[in-house]
């Protein structure tokens, strides 16, 4: 399946009217000389990547900093302060960066990116994010040749985040990517969704989205991006190394010890709709499979 790429972005209001969307997509892309073949693909991908309703995206969240129930994040994050918000990019870089979320928003233009989000729990949503490739920000920091991995550290603020009062996971939340994964154009720094500012329960003010990996890889409320030489240990790896690997690529052939990963429930599709088969790399194999050529993905799960 072909995905909508960042190069094929449409204006944010398209999701309000699907027909309008397809028409505009057709016009803009043909203007962009991409040809008939692409138009068919784009049409097919809009069919299968129909965005999930906003009410589900904004109320059904795994964000344990605010509690372990799906409804906790929306209920407990509304007063969370995302301003001022500073992010540090340091470690193996030539150019250490201290920057506010506001400055990032002004410096990089966000575009709409419609990606499927596959949770390790066996469900998926299609989310129209607003954001830009993380590589643009990382390039400004100029990673040196010792930068082999990127670690993402989320905010630690137990006063505002009631879930952090409990040792559910090791706080602050940590995630990591290999440098080539982090520099991949699909890896997105997210600033919004559905054309609006990112809601607190979805990881405001800045979160990551790595669409070919399970959702937990996409750290929320990031305060520090650290370029490192050694593979970082993520919070979930620390909590249960048998269940959560560093890579955590969506892979229907490798089961989680507790859940089959062969299929998924589509959020918002109703009580009588069937599970759909999970795709290798969440359907983004054309773009990312080459990052893992020669690797045993059962071993490096």
């Amino acid at each position, binding site marked *: 399946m072909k995905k909508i790429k960042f190069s094929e972005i449409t204006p944010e209001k398209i999701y309000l009217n699907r027909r309008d969307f397809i028409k505009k997509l057709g016009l803009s892309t043909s203007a962009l000389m991409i040809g008939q073949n692409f138009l068919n693909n784009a049409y097919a991908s809009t069919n299968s990547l129909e965005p999930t309703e906003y009410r589900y995206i904004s109320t*059904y969240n795994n964000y344990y900093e605010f509690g*372990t129930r*799906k409804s906790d994040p929306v209920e407990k994050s509304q007063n969370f302060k995302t301003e001022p918000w500073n992010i540090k990019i340091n470690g193996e870089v030539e150019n250490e960066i201290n920057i506010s979320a506001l400055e990032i928003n002004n410096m990089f233009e966000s575009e709409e990116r419609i990606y499927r989000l596959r949770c390790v729990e066996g469900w998926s949503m299609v989310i129209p994010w607003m954001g830009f490739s993380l590589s643009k920000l990382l390039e400004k920091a100029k990673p040196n040749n010792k930068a082999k991995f990127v670690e993402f550290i989320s905010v630690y603020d137990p006063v505002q985040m009631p879930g952090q009062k409990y040792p*559910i996971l090791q706080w602050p939340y940590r995630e990591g990517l290999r440098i080539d994964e982090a520099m991949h154009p699909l890896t997105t720094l997210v600033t919004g969704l559905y054309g609006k500012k990112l809601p607190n329960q979805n990881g405001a003010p800045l979160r990551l989205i790595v669409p070919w990996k399970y959702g937990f890889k996409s750290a929320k409320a990031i305060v520090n991006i650290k370029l490192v030489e050694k593979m970082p240990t993520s919070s979930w790896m620390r909590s249960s190394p048998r269940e959560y690997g560093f890579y955590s690529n969506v892979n229907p052939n490798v*089961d989680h010890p*507790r*859940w089959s990963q062969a299929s998924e429930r589509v*959020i918002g599709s109703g*009580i009588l709709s069937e599970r759909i088969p999970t795709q290798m790399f969440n359907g983004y194999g054309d773009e990312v499979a080459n990052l893992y050529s020669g690797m045993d993905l059962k071993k490096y799960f």
Partner: protein
Amino acid sequence: MIKYFKPFVFILCLWPLGIIILDIYYNNLGAEPVKKIMNHFGEWTLIFICLTLSMSPLKRITNLSFWIKFRRMLGLFVFFYATIHLLTYIGLDYRFDWEPIINDVLKKKYIFIGFSAWLLLIPLAATSSQKMIRILRHNWKNLHRLVYVIAIFGSLHYIWLSKTIFFKPLIYTAIIVVLLALRIKIKKRDVNYG
């Protein structure tokens, strides 16, 4: 009095089913309705296990035989809700697609133990009639002690499916452990009671 009380309790026991029917009707089940239905019936199965196991300790504590009259009915509700829970998983979630289901039962320990618990419930439900009690005599009592194993399996099922250490599965486990521990005492004190 028990005559009027029993039908009332019976209707009360149907409430968990009623809620779900209302929720389906009003489309109130949220983002993952199938999972919600499954969890709902799973949790109520555990609640009914706890209720069933509470009856003889209550009898002892209050000195009223009244409680025992509800035990069988509550036990059958355990089987009823466990069966709906299982059917939700097999029918609604997996559409009777047996391959992944069999795979799950064999590979996932929480599903294996949950399924085992349901299998163990079948002989108990099948021998719940007055006639079977007469036929099986003292074997009946031994057979129905299986409910202790079922209770432990049920709580393990809940613990093992949880992603991290969650509060609720531990609460149910604690309640079940207390209810089982109370029985050890009962047996020590009244040897005749059995």
